[in-house]
């Protein structure tokens, strides 16, 4: 039977790649180093597959169809939005497990939108290339990755309540999956950032630390209780990605979270928080 070995909550900030030198050097070093630390921890966890919970940024899904939640069950490549140091490449998807999650959902009230051949955006590809792929290099073993996309940035948004239920469904599907897979989860996004609005460049450290505290104490109910109005006001439209955290946290069912690093970086338009979800 498959086993869940842990997880991470990390940002997916493209400005880190396009304006590397814009941030103060000490902050930049700490953030890049924190991604490397997550890769080392993932390598040590023994994970063989990582489910990355991210969100589209109105690139992959257009106005003709906006799924609340989608899983890639076949060929995967990305990112569509290539960045300096983040080039498009094939992703080693765990097609069998992804299909099992979708099929389990069909039987339990979760009608997944399925992508048979999928191109990711940076929400998946930043943690994939900086953490999963790097962990595979460090450990010398193959680590597959499954993209899960929630409607966390383009409305109609998935509700925080449904994001939590979906995390529980994924967890049940993974635990029911045969074989000896060791599965980790990454919730990709946040924390405070304003995307494309006149407030862009603002970072709210108070809000960020509140979210970090909720994550580290595994207070999923507290996270899910935040209203969209409060999140938009305090953390910006980018902070709606907390939904990705909620889904991943519910899936991992960790005993606690451990802060790896937090840096508020206005030059990178984001409060960047990296947290490890520990199962023991």
């Amino acid at each position, binding site marked *: 039977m498959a086993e869940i070995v842990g997880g991470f909550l990390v940002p997916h900030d493209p400005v880190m790649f*396009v304006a590397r030198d814009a941030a103060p050097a000490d902050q930049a070093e700490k953030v890049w180093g924190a991604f490397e630390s997550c890769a080392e921890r993932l390598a040590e966890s023994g994970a063989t597959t990582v489910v990355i919970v991210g969100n589209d940024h109105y690139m992959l899904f*257009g*106005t003709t169809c906006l799924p609340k939640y989608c899983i890639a069950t076949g060929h995967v490549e990305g990112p569509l*939005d290539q960045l300096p140091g983040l080039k498009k490449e094939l992703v080693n998807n765990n097609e069998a497990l992804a299909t099992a999650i979708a099929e389990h959902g069909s039987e339990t009230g979760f009608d997944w939108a399925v992508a048979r051949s999928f191109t990711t955006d940076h929400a998946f590809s930043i943690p994939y290339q900086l953490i999963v792929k790097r962990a595979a290099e460090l450990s010398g073993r193959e680590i597959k990755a499954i993209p899960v996309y929630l409607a966390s940035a*383009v409305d109609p948004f998935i509700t925080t309540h449904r994001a939590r239920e979906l995390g529980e469904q994924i967890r049940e599907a993974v635990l029911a999956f045969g074989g000896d897979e060791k599965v980790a989860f990454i919730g990709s996004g946040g924390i405070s950032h304003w*995307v*494309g609005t006149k407030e*862009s460049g603002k970072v709210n450290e108070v809000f960020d630390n509140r979210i970090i505290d909720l994550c580290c104490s595994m207070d999923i109910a507290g996270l899910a209780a935040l209203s969209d109005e409060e999140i938009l006001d305090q953390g910006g439209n980018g902070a709606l990605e907390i939904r990705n955290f909620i889904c991943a946290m519910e899936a991992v069912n960790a005993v606690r979270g451990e802060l790896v690093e937090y840096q508020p970086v206005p030059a990178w338009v984001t409060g960047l928080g990296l947290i490890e979800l520990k199962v023991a």
Partner: protein
Amino acid sequence: MKRDVLERVLWSLSIDRFSKEKFKENPEKFLSRFPLEAEGVRMILEFDVKGLQEVGVSPLLTMGYWIEMSPDRHMSSYNKKLGSESDFSASIKG
């Protein structure tokens, strides 16, 4: 004004190479294919990202279309159009 067709046009101009080429060739002709009101056409042609957001268009799309199609593509100009004082200038696209 409804956001639906405006968002469809902006999504195409952010993502679809064919749409981008046709818009560059003849923007008025490209936009005539969509059931847009005159004010919607004006906002798109003038890159009025503030006006577009005020009628409910997603900031993700106003930013994407600005980066792909606007004359200077700089985020500092985008921010000024929105009425922001931010001097942040990095594009999120490589």
